[in-house]
């Protein structure tokens, strides 16, 4: 077969890669084989641009039971149990078809978790959209939220938290990153392995159709005005089928009749077949004519590349086949035997007995191309890092800034969103969305897990290394605020086109930052996902690494939320404010700017702060804790009051921001890192002081909980003084107003 450039381009393969295929096979590939190589060597499946950098991340630790390379990572959480978790992106499909794109993103990550033998108990998501004033963005936003709700709610896994941010760069390329966590007995983790010659290979779940063919390749290309034509490459989800698969698979796993199991996600049957074989050092032989099909006349190429959802591939121990088939029958699922494990290390695909593809599995997985792509510091950076406050003119009145920040969709309440997510099913949710890190208890133990996903892409844009460190620090800090000791992390790295040196530079610097922060905070990365080519018409998104951190709470009864609890409690700031406006919400909302350098981060001080928080919460000393992030101290104090009926009276120190006029603004709205607002009983202030001194964490008593007004003074001068209810209304109604009234649309 002489392959044309057109064929190669359609498969996203270069001429050099095609040569490598010929070398791997020792001959020209068949059409089916070209398809198989194209999806397995796509960026999405092979990580060919990112792998050299990802290898530098810390992935081991005393609690790590499973690091990267399996369907999900796992950490030991005591009581003989493991937490299995991962985050994954579904960005490209969610732009093309928001509801189904987001729904199938949820479905995919859930399968990754139960494939490990774990029962999924919590979902979180990290979303990025363009500005809500754009009608197209509102459609995408509403569709994505409904899709996440539609899938997660039906299957009965609570969505317990997440984050949403907005920036123009996401208008044509929204980000949908979904995190899932499950629980399994530590010694019952199941892997995606095929081994034992002669063991049967089973296919179970939805029938294979023509949907999603080349989804993995699509996710490895940029968008342009023709992207809508790619709609057929987005799959349609069926949460009911997945629910049946989930329950049936967990039941089958209890029998110990399985050798291995893997879901068919990106690259479908192709990926599951060769990855299972590769991991087990075995070969797998299947006959596509035995695969249950939804449509007539599908070719082996189409069957191998289909990304139809809700399908699993299983290897069953010899002699246990009937038992396994029986369990699936109970759930009205038909397990079809489509092949067997072999000893020759090859993936052999037959069609009614005739071989249509035969490829060494290694060449598809570990043998995939590996690129050390050229890197260069982006041209924008030197200029964008310059920030002169003096050039901004006189700062606006503080109350005006305060109100505009509270109503900014990035800061405003996300209730409109999480109200659509069932966050209580399974009755484990101790901290609801909007109240801090999501916290779920582990039934049958005293423990609970705190979960947070975070990332501030403006910071990463202005300094990828520090920005990524800040993302790790924030996610871990959020978990610590609930009283959770961070014990593991997963990352989802969303960037532009890696073939451009400046994007590759952003990526490499961000991964370096994540590695450094995770080492300093002692949080291993147990897996994750890379999404590249997030560009539309040649314009990349802000670089967006999202970090998900899992924190272990020893006593579920000690957990705290963001909100004040009692009249008369003291309000304490842990950490120190500096005059840091680089990449802040203040600059973005008030001046439309993304400029300057991100806040400084001292990882040792951050670690000390987090240790102090975990100790303070578990001792019952800290009664509420809220991370100080977007919008600074003023917004944080307000959020500590919202949903409580309490007000607060605070006096915070003035800050030297370089430009004297901005001292007050800095005190109120600077986004310095490593700060947390806590409340404590006045009688215990001595204890907290002692703990803080021991940890080397700066502590300032800045106010008292009480009344119904929020009063904030800077160095004794009152600047904000209004009923909490008024501020709360602005914050509560902001997002819904884009959807409930025509007024906002005009």
């Amino acid at each position, binding site marked *: 077969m002489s392959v044309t450039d057109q064929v190669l381009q359609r498969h996203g393969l270069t001429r050099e890669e095609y040569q490598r295929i010929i070398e791997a096979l020792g001959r020209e590939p068949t059409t089916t084989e070209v398809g198989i190589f194209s999806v397995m060597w796509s960026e999405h499946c092979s990580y060919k641009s990112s792998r050299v950098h990802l290898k530098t991340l810390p992935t081991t630790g005393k609690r790590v039971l499973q690091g990267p390379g399996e369907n999900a990572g796992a950490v030991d959480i005591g009581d003989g149990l493991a937490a299995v978790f991962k985050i994954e992106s579904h960005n490209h499909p969610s732009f093309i078809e928001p509801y189904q794109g987001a729904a199938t993103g949820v479905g995919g990550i859930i399968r990754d978790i139960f494939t490990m033998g774990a029962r999924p108990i919590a979902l979180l998501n990290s979303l990025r959209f363009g500005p809500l004033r754009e009608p197209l963005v509102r459609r995408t936003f509403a569709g994505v939220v409904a899709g996440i709700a539609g899938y997660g709610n*039906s299957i009965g896994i609570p969505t317990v938290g997440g984050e949403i941010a907005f920036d123009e760069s996401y208008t044509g390329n929204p980000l949908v990153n979904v995190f899932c966590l499950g629980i399994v007995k530590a010694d019952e983790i199941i892997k995606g392995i095929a081994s034992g010659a002669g063991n049967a290979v089973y296919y179970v779940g939805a029938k294979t159709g023509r949907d999603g063919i080349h989804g993995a390749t699509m996710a490895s290309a940029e968008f342009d005005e023709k992207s809508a034509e790619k709609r057929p490459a987005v799959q349609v989800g069926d949460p009911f089928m997945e629910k049946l698969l989930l329950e049936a698979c967990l039941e089958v796993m209890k029998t110990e009749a399985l050798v291995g199991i893997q879901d068919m996600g990106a690259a479908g049957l192709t990926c599951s077949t060769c990855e299972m074989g590769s991991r087990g050092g075995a070969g797998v032989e299947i006959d596509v004519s035995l695969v249950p099909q939804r449509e007539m006349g599908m070719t082996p190429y189409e069957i191998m590349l289909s990304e139809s959802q809700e399908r699993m591939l299983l290897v069953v121990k010899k002699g246990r086949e009937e038992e396994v088939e029986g369990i699936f029958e109970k759930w009205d699922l038909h397990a079809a035997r489509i092949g067997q494990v072999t000893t020759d290390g090859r993936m052999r695909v037959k069609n009614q007995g005739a071989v249509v593809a035969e490829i060494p599995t290694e060449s598809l997985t570990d043998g995939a191309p590996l690129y050390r792509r050229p890197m260069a510091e982006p041209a924008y950076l030197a200029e964008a890092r310059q920030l002169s406050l003096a050039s901004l003119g006189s700062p606006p009145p503080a109350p005006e800034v305060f109100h505009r920040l509270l109503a900014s969709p990035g800061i405003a309440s996300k209730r409109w969103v999480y109200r659509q997510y069932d966050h209580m099913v399974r009755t484990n949710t101790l901290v609801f969305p909007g109240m801090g890190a999501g916290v779920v208890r582990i039934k049958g133990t005293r423990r609970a897990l705190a979960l947070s996903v975070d990332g501030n892409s403006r910071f990463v844009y202005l300094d990828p290394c520090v920005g990524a460190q800040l993302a790790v620090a924030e996610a871990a800090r959020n978990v610590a605020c609930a009283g959770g000791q961070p014990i593991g992390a997963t990352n989802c790295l969303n960037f532009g086109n890696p073939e451009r040196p400046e994007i590759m530079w952003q990526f490499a610097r961000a991964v370096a930052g994540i590695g450094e922060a995770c080492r300093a905070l002692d949080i291993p990365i147990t897996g994750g996902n890379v999404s590249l080519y997030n560009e539309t018409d040649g314009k990349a998104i802000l670089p967006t690494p999202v970090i998900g951190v899992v924190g272990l709470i020893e006593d579920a009864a000690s957990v705290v939320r963001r909100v004040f609890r009692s009249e008369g409690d003291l309000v304490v700031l842990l950490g120190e404010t500096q005059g840091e406006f680089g990449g802040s919400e203040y600059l973005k909302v008030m001046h439309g700017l993304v400029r300057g350098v991100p806040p400084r981060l001292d990882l040792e001080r951050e670690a000390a702060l987090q240790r102090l928080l975990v100790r303070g919460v578990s001792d019952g000393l800290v009664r509420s804790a809220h991370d100080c992030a977007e919008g600074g101290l003023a917004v944080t104090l307000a959020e500590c009051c919202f949903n409580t009926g309490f007000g607060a009276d605070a006096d915070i120190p003035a800050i030297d921001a370089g430009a004297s006029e901005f001292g007050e603004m800095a005190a109120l709205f600077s986004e310095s890192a490593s700060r947390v607002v806590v409340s404590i009983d006045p009688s215990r202030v001595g204890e907290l002081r002692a703990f803080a001194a021991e940890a080397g964490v700066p502590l300032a008593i800045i106010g008292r909980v009480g009344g119904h007004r929020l009063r904030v003074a800077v160095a004794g001068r009152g600047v904000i003084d209004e009923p909490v209810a008024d501020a709360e209304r602005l914050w509560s109604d902001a997002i819904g107003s884009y959807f409930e009234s025509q007024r906002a649309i005009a």
Partner: protein
Amino acid sequence: MKFAVVVFPGSNGDHDAYHAVRHVLGQDAVFVWHKDTSLQGADAVILPGGFAHGDYLRTGAIARFSPIMREVNRFAEGGGPVLGICNGFQVLLEAGLLPGAMLRNRNVRFQCEHVVVKIEHTDTPFTVGCRQGQLLRMPIAHGDGNYYAEPDVVEGLEKSRRVIFRYATAAGAVTPEANPNGSVDNIAGLCSETRNVVGLMPHPERACELAVGSADGLVLLESVVKSVGQGACATAR
């Protein structure tokens, strides 16, 4: 006392109900698969929340054909206490054990949050331990909870005192603002003519422990224990 928790394919409140009965209430509970034909001698039946059969076609429309529903019918006819929660309530409506139907929520979105319901009548096995007018804070989690019945049917329900739960404000006022989904007359739940079959949209089984937000729902389960213990509900009143 033994509760049977029916498991339809797509049920997802089954574990919640089981946990509440077994580990909070301290009573016996068994899962009963929808293809089974025996309720295993249970004293009360719970049809849990979820999306039975994916809620394809209509919520609860396929579940009513499950083999176990013949047993549930027979059990109900014999006066046995049956509680349908959320999707279970929808199944009871489809099965004709309770009158009316569910429409999409007024705002056409899925809605999950705590609401307050007012106990209208205490003479059912699930409310016998309540006070009339008592307010319970329980979560809702549904997309189709907008209860509808023809005006004459609603009138009949009111006359026969079969509206058992109504959405109310925290102060107990039954107002349009307190109605989360558009249900006619703020109806959150009702009972059968014989009063032993009760369905409601809020989730009492998810409101049995303060740690998860509210323990107000426990009284409904305690009520049925009391009721069965007294043998009071074995015969319809």
